[in-house]
């Protein structure tokens, strides 16, 4: 292996690592706030990429119908609860978020012909379709189980993952899609050519991570999420509802997932089930961080990306094996060094 190949592999590794870092951050966030191990994260990656691809191909993405259906389901459940608790004033808000908003997105899909819009608008459109599915998934699947054990929530996550993969196959078919790169620019850095999409991925990841950092460090909503993760009872006493925190963290996670998918869609062909492996690598990174520390998760993700890239060169058949085997020494190390943290209060 010469320097040039090493640099190329390194570039690959860092780019993938950046994506894994984003996903790992989302996983840590969701786990800290809701104790849910968010396996369906990967489906949001695939939905983001495939929804954008469908939009660009001038087709109506199936996720649009999923958004409508999930919106109706959430509206029905929430309306039932509001009426049961005799809080009819909530109905307007419920209808706005779960019926009016999805309908507005459908309307735009009909009349704006997003295939002809500039890329930014198409991306925004894909996000508008996929991201609301995050809080809706929380409402329908996880909120009724908010008090359940981590294990039950994990099993439910597995089920949600399988359901969403199935829906993905139904909506997008078995063939994969690849979208055109965001820009055709190429930069020669000495011996290596860095293409535009690489820079996009790295730049967008850095910006997104900085934005998340700011969100958690500065905004009161970000602090409220951290507060819920630190002390659920304390947070509720401040009026930070566990439900709101859960929905917010799922919104952020869905946004990160869908946007990651959009970022990688020009680099690799995305199939309906591609998200799972990508999400799982983010999960490895999150495990390295003990599902707790954001910087450690980001560092772990870069490590996973590099390991993957270099093992694909030396032992490409075993690339996944090597990455996932990494979990074992990490878990061993963690269980030997860390005091046994209590699982639940």
């Amino acid at each position, binding site marked *: 292996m010469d320097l040039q190949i090493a640099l190329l592999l390194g570039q690959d590794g860092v780019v993938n690592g950046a994506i894994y870092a984003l996903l790992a951050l989302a996983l840590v966030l969701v786990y800290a706030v809701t104790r849910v191990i968010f396996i369906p994260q990967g489906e949001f990656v695939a939905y983001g990429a495939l929804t954008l691809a469908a939009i660009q191909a001038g087709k109506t993405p199936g996720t649009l119908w999923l958004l409508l259906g999930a919106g109706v389901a959430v509206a029905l459940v929430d309306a039932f609860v509001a009426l049961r608790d005799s809080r009819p004033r909530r109905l307007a808000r419920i209808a706005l978020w779960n019926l009016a908003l999805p309908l507005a997105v459908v309307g735009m899909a009909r009349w704006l012909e997003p295939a002809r819009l500039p890329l930014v608008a198409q991306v925004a459109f894909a996000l508008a379709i996929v991201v609301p599915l995050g809080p809706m998934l929380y409402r329908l699947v996880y909120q009724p189980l908010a008090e359940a054990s981590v294990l039950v929530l994990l099993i439910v996550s597995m089920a949600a993952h399988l359901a969403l993969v199935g829906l993905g196959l139904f909506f997008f078919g078995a063939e994969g899609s690849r979208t055109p790169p965001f820009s055709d620019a190429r930069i020669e850095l000495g011996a290596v050519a860095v293409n535009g999409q690489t820079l996009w991925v790295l730049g967008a990841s850095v910006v997104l991570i900085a934005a998340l950092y700011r969100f958690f460090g500065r905004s009161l909503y970000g602090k409220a999420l951290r*507060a819920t993760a630190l*002390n659920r009872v304390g947070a509720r006493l401040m009026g930070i*509802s566990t439900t709101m925190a859960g929905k917010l963290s799922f919104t952020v996670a869905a946004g990160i997932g869908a946007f990651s998918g959009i970022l990688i869609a020009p680099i690799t062909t995305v199939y309906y089930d591609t998200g799972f492996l990508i999400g799982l690598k983010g999960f490895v990174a999150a495990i390295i961080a003990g599902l707790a520390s954001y910087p450690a998760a980001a560092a772990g993700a870069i490590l996973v990306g590099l390991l993957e890239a270099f093992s694909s060169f030396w032992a490409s058949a075993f690339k996944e094996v090597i990455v996932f085997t990494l979990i074992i020494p990490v878990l061993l190390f963690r269980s030997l060094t860390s005091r046994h943290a209590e699982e639940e209060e």
Partner: protein
Amino acid sequence: MTEPILRVRDLCVSYGKVEALHHLDITVEPGQIVAVIGPNGAGKTTMLSAIMGLLPSSGEIEFQGELQRACEVEHLVAMGMTLVPEKRELFSEMSVEDNLLLGAFQRFHAGERDQGRTMDQVFATFPRLKERRAQLAGTLSGGERQMVAVGRALMAKPKLLMLDEPSLGLAPMVVREIFHIIAGLRGLGVAVLLVEQNARAALQISDHGCVLETGGVVLAGESRALANDPRVVQTYLGLGGARP
């Protein structure tokens, strides 16, 4: 005649098969400090948790004249009820300032943006917190942590402040300071429901008091009268009782 801030009627709470509160009635009038005293395990914390919606209960809880049906903590906080729990429940890995800001979360969520001014008021009440504003809450002394807990509750601009044993584990000097501040809340128009084992101090600063024993109210009345009641004197203010 104004309506009471809080009127609880026939409150029952059970932990599994064991009933911890039986048919409890309690009323707090506007601007009043009501003290609930009683021994360990009498059900004081249970009562506050149930009123705050943290525990399922049966009975009627009327807050500001409105019957609370599906008692949700967040809803009650938004209406102006705040609890400083026995365990404080601070966000120990966050700064004092962030803890205080989060106390105003519900108002922020509702669109109010006067958190800076409210925080200045809290700092005026607890000057020590201003010095420690950047420090992590978990690194404070017990007294300071209690101040953060009360200050954080005040950030919500509550109509009713419920305090669960604010003197617990504090040095006598600090207890006196905290009670002085609680007595001063009357001037701010905040009604207080004060749960204490330190009966002497609680009866001194309160208008009304009641004695809770094994899940029921056994005595109630004006605090001054209670403080002279032989049964209270013997059990709670005697040599065995806590001193302020």
